């Protein structure tokens, strides 16, 4: 009889709603930011007791605030507590995105699986349609089994409790805000609240003091173990008063210390554009911010730089990662588990983001083949498509040497595709080297319907303000 006894694992306390353990380190509990690709960059999600800082140095767009909105919406959607530090917190929440369809209201309660709204083909993103025709072309046989080139992680199901699918075209219903308020799951702190003279003078200290009270109160409230999300959409905006760089550093430092003391909370902070610059904080400002927070990224939008937006026409800005959360390990789990960053395979990928009509996604950024066309090209560009089946094309010359009328040897006839679409199959000797195999009429008509992006210097300008 062996003396070896199986060690039974002690009963783990149940995880708060909307969280799960990090695959790399079981001591870390992670929660979703609401954006699946950002979750992947962070290594699965933002760990509890960590702070996320989003810098958005572009003054003409509000992508940083958009990330904080996703964070707040995800918090309310999975039943967590959300504390918004903003002078107009209700307005901020009412502008947040929400889940599409009638399942939205029903799925707020945790543990209540909602019926998924039927996905309609018409609701697909326009950019995704462009890749459909790629599957119809004939590619070399050895690549047939390979999946399509992925630039981002796929979004989860709509009923996924960890990360809900949000739709930028739908707003958070007032009923959700009201019920969260009555449940005590929506708290707000205003930085311009001027308490009586005995309170601390600086807005940063007041907010830290108030957050400390709220978090201590939540900790004593042990009947429900809810995670708390602190959302600060604009740290240092004018309502906070004139903040110096030292006060912002003090705030972030104290916020992090607060989160460590109350480990069931996490925070997402966005700095307004004028405070992200080195002209405000001095040299090495971005590095200092990276040291003072657990996770820090910069969303550098292209809107002020037309040459960059022309070069990367399908993206709206670059993503720079300064620091990643590693609350219990030397190495951040993102190094091992992030598919977007790609550290496991080779050197790190460049990342970019784009805000589509319905969602914000983070993607890997790849340089184009020739420069000028936004998408990865697997078919020749539109200006090279010339021929339709059975029509005169260069190869006919080989079969009809008697047509000495045409002087040029390799004559390419360009004809409009909708004119002649012959049903007769083309002669089998035609190779398909440079010529797209548009031998099937259905395909050429399908191709005609697609407006290919032109290899010109003016690309379709992305609609930046379409939130």
């Amino acid at each position, binding site marked *: 009889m062996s003396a070896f006894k199986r060690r039974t694992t002690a009963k783990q306390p149940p995880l708060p709603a909307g969280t799960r353990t990090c695959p790399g380190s079981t001591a870390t509990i992670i929660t979703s930011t609401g954006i699946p690709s950002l979750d992947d960059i962070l290594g699965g999600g933002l760990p509890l007791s960590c702070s996320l800082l989003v810098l958005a140095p572009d003054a003409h767009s509000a992508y940083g605030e958009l990330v904080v909105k996703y964070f707040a919406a995800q918090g309310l959607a999975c039943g967590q507590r959300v504390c918004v530090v903003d002078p107009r917190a209700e307005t901020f929440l009412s502008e947040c995105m929400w889940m599409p369809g009638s399942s939205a209201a029903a799925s707020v309660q945790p543990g209540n699986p909602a019926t998924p709204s039927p996905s309609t083909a018409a609701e697909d993103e326009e950019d995704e349609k462009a890749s459909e025709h790629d599957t119809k072309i004939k590619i070399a046989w050895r690549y047939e089994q390979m999946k399509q080139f992925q630039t981002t992680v796929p979004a989860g199901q709509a009923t996924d409790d960890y990360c809900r699918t949000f739709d930028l075209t739908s707003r958070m219903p007032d009923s959700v805000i009201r019920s969260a308020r009555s449940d005590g799951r929506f708290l707000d702190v205003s930085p311009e609240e001027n308490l009586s003279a005995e309170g601390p003078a600086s807005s940063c200290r007041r907010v830290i003091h108030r957050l400390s009270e709220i978090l201590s109160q939540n900790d004593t409230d042990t009947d429900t173990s809810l995670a708390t999300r602190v959302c600060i959409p604009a740290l240092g905006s004018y309502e906070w008063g004139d903040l110096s760089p030292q006060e912002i550093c003090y705030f972030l430092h104290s916020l992090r210390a607060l989160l*460590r*003391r109350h480990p069931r909370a996490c925070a997402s902070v966005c700095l307004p554009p004028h405070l992200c610059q080195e002209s405000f904080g001095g040299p090495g*400002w971005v*590095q200092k911010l990276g040291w003072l927070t657990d996770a820090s990224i910069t969303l550098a939008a292209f809107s002020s730089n037309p040459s960059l937006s022309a070069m990367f026409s399908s993206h709206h800005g670059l993503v720079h990662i300064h620091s990643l959360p590693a609350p*219990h390990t*030397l190495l951040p789990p993102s190094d091992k588990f992030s598919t977007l960053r790609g550290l496991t395979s080779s050197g790190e990928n460049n990342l970019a983001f784009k805000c589509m009509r319905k969602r914000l996604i983070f993607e890997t950024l790849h340089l184009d083949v020739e420069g000028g066309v936004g998408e990865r090209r697997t078919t020749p560009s539109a200006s090279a498509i010339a021929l339709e089946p059975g029509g005169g094309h260069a190869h006919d010359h080989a079969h009809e040497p008697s047509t000495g009328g045409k002087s040029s040897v390799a004559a390419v006839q360009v004809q409009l595709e909708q004119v002649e679409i012959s049903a007769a199959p083309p002669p089998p000797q035609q190779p398909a080297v440079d010529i797209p195999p548009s031998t099937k009429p259905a395909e050429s008509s399908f191709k005609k319907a697609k407006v290919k992006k032109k290899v010109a210097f003016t690309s379709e300008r992305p609609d930046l303000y379409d939130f």
Partner: protein
Amino acid sequence: MFPPSGLPLPGEILLITDELLAPADFLLHRQVATHLKASKVSKCVLISISEDIGRWKAVAQRSNINSTQYLDSGSLSFIDAMPIASTAIDGESSVPLKELFQKISATLIQLSSESGIDLLVVLDDIASLEWVGIPAADVVRFARALCALCRKLKASLVLRHHVTTPGEPDDIFKHLFQLCTYHLDVFPLSTGRSGTVSGQVALHCGPATLAPAHRLVPRSAAVHYRLSDTGSVFFDRGTGSGVL
């Protein structure tokens, strides 16, 4: 063997600088681990300004060091410096970090009162004190006082400083460099992040050190290291494939 053992010796001061892309947490953990494992009478004082004890314990656990046991037995003491220093930011007292210094010196004097104790003091990190608003001159005075105290008590001191402007040393770094016996410089690869090499380390000697006891490593020939969950592996430039 890098980093060399006996760095720092009692009475010596080691300055560790790092950058955001190449943090030096692993070096601190390594220093404390080797010190505590060296003998039963070795003690360590950890003064933390930015992080809390939870992270230290979690990371140490992964390299099989039971911090709780050391904390209970008194071999490892942890001083959480931020609450004490935050009162200094209000600018009420003329010497902002005095309270923190008094607490540290009380702990150190009490620990070193027993004879034959090998004491290691780790201060992590000194840059945050300046960033949150304490004037640089006060931070430098605090550092100098701490160095003097450790020299007097024959304790080895490890200071950690974050470098945010790689090409241009800031004022605090200049003063700290004058005080130190050795300087371990942790910096990232010039080509950015890589999967195999996490960063590089150079060893310099302080300006007051006449005869360095260890082989110095200049930045141009810096030793590469790679972090893993359990610790770090050092290897010379270009020999990565042989070691990893």
